[in-house]
């Protein structure tokens, strides 16, 4: 209740009510008094004038048949409608109107004001000179009609005052609403702003200039708050992006360091093992040459030589991963041609339930490096892809395009070629995807894979200054995206390259 009274609207209405409660009764009493005075004055004026004229007329009546003439005059007075009592006192004689009912003589003194004596009759007497004697004329005027008019006028006044009060109340309610509505809207908007919705515009239309100015001031404050808030949010976003980039770079650096460490270790081991393997291969080959063909010993030595070759091949792949490749051909070459060559080979070994599609919009995308290594990258990625679709079949899509987007992890920005290999196979689980480029990491059964394919791909791409990313969704497929820097125009073309 207290809160209700404390609202602007309630207070305005209360003020109007208090003012009316104080002034309306005074107004009514004042107007009533004026009305009453007016009617009373009019009545008194009328009866005094009328009685005076009657007295003057009576004074002018001829002495002959005075009584008859006086009664006739009094009859005329009675017929005026406002006189209820007439009497002429001539010494001991009393004449009254023949139209007046007989009644006892009135002993009451004269009235000098409206309402005197409370009998609703205004008695007035005039002394009339009739020669040497004085005759008294007494008339009584009915006050009741005037009293009724006064009462009716008071009723009308009361009705008018009550109507005025009601109209004032309605106007005050309306006016308080007009004044309070913009304030309430402003209050609600300010609450929304205070509640965090700083974009809630403080917009209200009011004809009251003070309210309008208050709205403008608060709106400018809100806009400043919005600006400061947006600046703060922008700074926070920038910091978050920077933090994410920093964490990503940190993660990549750790990954690179780990792969580099593994590569160094594997390369060292492979190098030493290659030194050991060389005499084994050499002497077993010599022994095989000295052994008669078809003998059991030749057969055993042949197995040793074959195993030594497989070991050398494995070592070569380890060395490739660890960048200790023995690459001799480095120059600019057409990536599309290399991709087409590799796909021609893949089409021969990929089962028919796997559809191979090449999407290469650009004709001449040239990269710098050893095309055989890029060939190996394509073969490895496509092999993994078709193996993922081996049972169910699917689609192998190879896309090739160039982009201006910087290669992740590369400091030097420039145009790069993008080789994308997408399959619709079983996909890679999220827990596995972080380890796919690590050497010797495989999800295949023992004997089915060495775990070196993707690590070799990673090593080749990194050695060419590129990067490789992987995206996969389980049961939907995997996409490997290889970024290679596009060869500068000054780079020499390789022999036999069409471009």
């Amino acid at each position: 209740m207290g809160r209700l009274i404390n609202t602007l609207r309630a207070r305005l209405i209360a003020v109007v009510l208090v003012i009316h409660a104080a002034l309306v009764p005074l107004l009514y009493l004042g107007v009533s008094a004026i009305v009453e005075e007016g009617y009373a004055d009019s009545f008194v004026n009328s009866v005094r004038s009328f009685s005076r004229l009657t007295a003057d007329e009576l004074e002018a009546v001829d002495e002959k048949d005075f009584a008859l003439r006086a009664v006739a005059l009094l009859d005329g007075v009675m017929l005026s409608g406002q006189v209820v009592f007439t009497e002429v006192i001539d010494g001991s004689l009393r004449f009254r109107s023949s139209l007046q009912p007989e009644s006892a003589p009135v002993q009451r003194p004269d009235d000098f004001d409206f309402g005197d004596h409370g009998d609703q009759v205004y008695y007035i007497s005039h002394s009339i000179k009739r020669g040497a004697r004085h005759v008294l004329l007494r008339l009584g005027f009915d006050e009741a009609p005037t009293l009724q008019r006064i009462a009716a006028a008071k009723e009308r006044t009361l009705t008018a005052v009550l109507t005025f009060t009601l109209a004032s109340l309605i106007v005050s309610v309306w006016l308080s609403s007009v004044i309070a509505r913009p304030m309430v809207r402003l209050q609600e908007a300010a609450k929304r702003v205070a509640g965090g919705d700083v974009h809630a515009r403080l917009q209200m239309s009011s004809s009251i200039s003070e309210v309008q100015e208050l709205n403008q001031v608060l709106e400018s404050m809100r806009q400043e708050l919005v600006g400061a808030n947006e600046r703060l949010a922008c700074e926070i976003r920038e910091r978050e992006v920077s933090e994410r980039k920093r964490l990503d770079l940190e993660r990549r650096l750790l990954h690179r360091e780990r792969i580099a460490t593994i590569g160094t270790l594997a390369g060292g081991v492979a190098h030493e093992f290659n030194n050991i393997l060389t005499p084994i291969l050499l002497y077993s080959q010599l022994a095989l040459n000295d052994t008669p063909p078809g003998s059991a010993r030749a057969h055993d030595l042949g197995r040793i030589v074959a195993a030594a070759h497989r070991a050398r091949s494995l070592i070569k792949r380890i060395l490739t991963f660890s960048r200790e490749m023995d690459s001799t051909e480095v120059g600019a070459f057409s990536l599309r041609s290399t991709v087409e060559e590799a796909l021609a080979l893949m089409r021969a070994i990929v089962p028919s339930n796997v559809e191979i599609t090449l999407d290469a919009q650009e004709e001449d995308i040239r990269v710098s490096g050893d095309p055989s290594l890029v060939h190996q990258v394509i073969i490895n990625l496509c092999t993994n892809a078709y193996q993922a679709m081996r049972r169910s079949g699917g689609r192998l899509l190879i896309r090739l395009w160039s982009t201006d987007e910087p290669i992740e992890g590369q400091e030097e920005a420039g145009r790069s070629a993008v080789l994308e290999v997408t399959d619709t196979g079983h996909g890679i689980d999220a827990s596995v995807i972080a380890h796919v480029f690590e050497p010797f990491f495989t999800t295949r059964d023992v004997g089915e894979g060495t775990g070196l394919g993707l690590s070799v791909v990673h090593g080749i791409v990194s050695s060419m200054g590129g990067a490789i990313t992987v995206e996969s969704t389980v049961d939907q497929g995997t996409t490997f995206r290889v970024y290679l820097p596009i060869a500068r125009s000054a780079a020499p073309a390789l022999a036999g390259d069409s471009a």
Partner: protein
Amino acid sequence: MECSRILSSRRALLLLALLFCAALGSASTQSVVLVVRADSPVTDLDPVTVRKLFLGVPVLLNGRLLHPIRNRSDARLDQIFLQEIAAMSQAAYDRQILIGVNRQGWLPPEELSSSGRVLERLSSDPNAVSFLWQKDVARNSQLRVIRVLWAD
């Protein structure tokens, strides 16, 4: 009931005064008379002329302008004047006087607030005409009653 509500305090006081006077009047009759100086040429004035005189209308008698003097020594006498001579209410009388002064250039009656001063004025002016209680002029040989205006 209605009448009793509309009685003002002034009226109530007047009523009390009238009742008091009425009580006194039971012993002796009061009357208001029109008076001039004893040697005044005015012998009689009819009611219309008296009315004209006190409404400010110039009244000449034998070429001499009569001087009306309104006696305002007491409230009842004032009421009798309005009822018997002016034959109108106080507001209407004031209005008539203003109209006479402003439109016709008449002079309003001289007003005196005590009977003593009225008597002095009448004694000093043979053309002066005023009204007084009968008792105030009963033994005054310098004045002459020319008409009874009102009798209780």
